[in-house]
């Protein structure tokens, strides 16, 4: 791995050295390091690019890091990663993709991740997307995530895209069984002429299933964002989606929540709010001695924290 690649890894996974536990580094389409543990196995797929991550039942307090970096301009790849998580686990999975494009051709990474979570398991899934590079080539990421939660399982997905991705289309689907819970916390900031579209659809099939899909975003300059959140309640369940966006400059933000209740005991709520930074927030911070620009930066930093 060279310095640029190491820098990307630091940005997306916060890693300064080889992580503890299981990991799989993918650099410019090639395997660049892997470790497995007694409980977590990683196997290269044979029919298509990607890996299977198999976590034994009862695995607790372990983590898997699977960062991907692209530093070769013009590289386009689709990678299929499947996670098979046994029953009664408690694990953290850190994925993420960093693109450094110093050339003129578009670099594109599409990560297709599927999670099959066993009964009563808890999973924290963290995914960060980051782009950099001074070339004219676009940096494109299209992550697809599919989640299936067995009875009593819990998956919390934290997804962050703060900088440098020119175009992203993010699709997340989930099927939630009895007493299982799916939480999404999405944070997005777009600037320049960037476009970001996120599309969540959650099927609440089990009795006592629940979901909370929360998106916070900031759209600057001439960027465009679209947020779809579809929740279907097919049983006694509860679902909530929330899109909260700060709009600035000439940006465009669309929020399209959709709720379908197919059971009389389904309780579904959506909230969507788009607006500029409130004038009184700026004034308050200015009375503390901040300039208007500093106040704006602090408000955005807090909002996306």
């Amino acid at each position, binding site marked *: 791995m060279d310095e640029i690649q190491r820098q990307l890894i630091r940005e997306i996974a916060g890693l300064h050295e080889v992580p503890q536990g299981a990991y799989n580094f993918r650099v410019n389409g090639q395997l660049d390091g892997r470790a497995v543990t007694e409980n977590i196995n990683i196997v290269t797929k044979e029919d298509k690019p990607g890996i299977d991550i198999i976590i034994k039942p009862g695995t607790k307090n372990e983590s898997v890091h699977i960062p991907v970096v692209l530093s070769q301009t013009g590289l386009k790849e689709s990678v299929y990663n499947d996670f098979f998580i046994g029953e009664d686990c408690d694990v953290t999975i850190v994925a993420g993709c960093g693109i450094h494009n110093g050339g003129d051709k578009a670099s594109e990474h599409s990560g297709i991740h599927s999670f099959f979570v066993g009964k009563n398991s808890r999973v924290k899934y963290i995914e960060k997307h980051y782009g950099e590079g001074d070339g004219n080539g676009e940096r494109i990421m299209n992550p697809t995530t599919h989640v299936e939660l067995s009875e009593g399982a819990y998956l919390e997905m934290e997804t962050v895209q703060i900088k440098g991705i020119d175009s992203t289309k993010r699709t997340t689907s989930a099927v939630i069984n009895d007493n299982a819970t799916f939480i999404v916390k999405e944070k997005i900031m777009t600037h320049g002429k960037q476009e970001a579209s996120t599309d969540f659809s959650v099927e609440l099939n089990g009795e006592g299933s629940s979901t909370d899909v929360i998106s916070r975003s900031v759209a600057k300059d001439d960027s465009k964002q679209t947020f779809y959140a579809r929740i279907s309640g097919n049983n006694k369940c509860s679902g909530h989606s929330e899109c*909260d966006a700060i709009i600035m400059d000439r940006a465009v933000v669309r929020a399209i929540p959709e709720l379908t209740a197919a059971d009389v005991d389904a309780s579904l709520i959506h909230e969507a709010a788009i607006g500029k930074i*409130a004038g009184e927030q700026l*004034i*308050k911070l200015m009375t*503390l001695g901040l300039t208007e620009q500093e106040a704006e930066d602090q408000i955005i930093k*807090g909002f*996306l924290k």
Partner: protein
Amino acid sequence: MLEFQNVSYNVSEDNSEKEIIKNINVKIDGRFTAITGPNGGGKSTMAKLIAGIIKPTSGRILFDGEDITDMSITDRARKGISYGFQQPVRFKGLTVNDLITMAAGRKIDITEACSYLSEVGLCAKDYIGREVNASLSGGELKRIEIAMVIARGTALSVFDEPEAGIDLWSFKSLIKVFENMYKKQGGSIVIITHQERILEIADRILVLNNGAIEKYGTREEIFPGLMKGDIACSALTKACDID
């Protein structure tokens, strides 16, 4: 310290100009000045003029002899003017600690941030990490607002109706907060208030009515008259007489 020279503030309403502040001339140089008077008398407008949130239509405002009339909110804050809002602002994502740190204007440790919260009667460990969002009650927000002003520790602290939204139980401790500020901090305090208990601890009282100064003097001179109700609206007084 703070001087208003021929300050007027007008707003346009239905194609006509309405005078909110009418050619005020006053020097506020006491250590603890209370501004009081009927609702709509121009008190909050005066506070906003001091902080720079609005600019006078005419006249000059001086702070420690320097003309600050054209200065921005930021520059006035940096010169040493603090302003506690009547209705505190909520921020999604920013925590109490973030705001206290910004108020202090320098890196402070948790112990110091907590000391400002304790000052306003909040149990610091319960609040320091909380977001300043809709989950906090009006009274809690108000105390945090006051804690921010204390953390700034500036030459002049202006509070717009700090008692509004604070329950009766907490009110007693609020008085203590201002008494402590008065004792500990070297700066001057200006409080806009309707509360008799706050008027009682002020050095000087300014009565603002209908955009003009009706009375201004020491507490001993002004306070007894206020309690007799001779500044109350005449209609209100009549209503009381009928009862």
